[in-house]
Each structure stands twice: as structure tokens, then as C-alpha cells.
């Protein structure tokens, strides 16, 4: 076993555990914003680590693997951001109802008053 295979196997195991923790956060968290927070970041890191591990195990595949990693790195935050904004505009259920931490509603009111 070369050093590249050891690092690749370690990255695959770490990435799959991160994917599991992200799915556990989606299952356990109380409302949709917490689920977005817990699920998307952990699953992005897990997918990137797993795919990079495969790229280290098979060094001939590294270019296409890097393309997939780049695509995941920009597509996952965009989709979670769009989903969070949509659920906020639909007045989705919030577990923490403190008005002080809901900064986006003030920006939304300012945008609506400017129109």
C-alpha cells in the first residue's frame, strides 16, 4: 500500500461519516432552517472528501474528479440558499421565534418599502 492509497482510504471513510452526520442532522433538527444548516454543509464536505479520496486512489481519474468536486462546491450552497430564501418568504415554521435574530425580515421590509 502506497501513501496515496492510505490517504485516499482515510478521506473516503471520513467523507462517508460526514455524509451520515449530515443526514442525521436532517432527521433530528426541529425546523427547516436548522435542517438546512446541519444538512447541507456536512453533506457538501462529505461528498467532496469522498470524491477526492477516489481521485487519490485512482490517479488517472483526477481531472474528472476535480470537475465533479468543483461542481458540488458551487451547486450545493446555491441550492440551499435558494431553498432557505423560498422557505423564509413562505413564512415557514421557525423553532426559535426571537425577533432579534431574524435579520433577513428587516432587509425584506426595506426592499418592499423601496418598491
Amino acid at each position: 500500500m502506497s501513501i496515496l492509497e492510505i490517504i485516499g482510504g482515510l478521506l473516503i471513510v471520513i467523507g462517508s461519516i460526514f455524509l451520515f452526520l449530515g443526514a442525521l442532522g436532517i432527521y433530528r433538527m426541529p425546523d427547516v432552517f436548522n435542517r438546512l444548516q446541519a444538512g447541507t454543509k456536512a453533506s457538501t464536505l462529505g461528498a467532496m472528501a469522498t470524491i477526492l479520496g477516489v481521485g487519490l486512489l485512482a490517479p488517472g481519474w483526477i481531472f474528472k474528479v476535480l470537475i465533479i468536486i468543483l461542481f458540488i462546491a458551487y451547486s450545493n450552497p446555491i441550492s440551499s440558499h435558494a431553498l432557505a430564501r423560498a422557505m423564509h418568504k413562505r413564512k415557514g415554521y421557525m423553532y426559535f421565534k426571537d425577533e432579534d435574530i431574524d435579520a433577513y425580515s428587516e432587509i425584506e421590509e426595506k426592499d418592499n418599502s423601496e418598491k
Partner: protein
Amino acid sequence: MDYIIYFSLTVMTLALILAAVRFYKGPSAGDRTLALDTMTTIGVSSIVLLAYLFDRYIYLDVALVYGVLGFIGVIVIARYLEKAL
């Protein structure tokens, strides 16, 4: 090295089951869309692992196209929920 792939695929299957439970239970449409997004991400990782396990280079293209389609689907559903489509 194959046992590491088997272990990772088992852990990913458990994660897929948890996301599928949230997809079934989820009280709002956003929860279901989020669970679908996570299932797509886990599926892309599983397909890349299967490409290494079966030694098929062409499966990486399948993973890339699956990721693109899942991304576009989530964006379209989010814009629809925003009443902006």
C-alpha cells in the same frame, strides 16, 4: 482496499435511509426538497465509489450528470415555492 469501499457504502446507505425518512415525514415542501437534495448528494458520492469498485471510468459521467440534474431540480422547486417561477 475493497473493505473500505464496502464500509463507506454501508454508512452511505444508512444516511440515505435517514434522508428518506425525512423525505417521507417532512411537514413542509421545503423539508422534502432538502431531503431530496441530500439524497442526490449521497447518490453522487455512491456512484463515484461504485465507479472505483467496478473500475469503470464512464460512471463518473453518470455521477456528474446526476448532480447537474439534481441541482437544476432543486433550484426549480425553490423558485416555485417562492412563487417566482
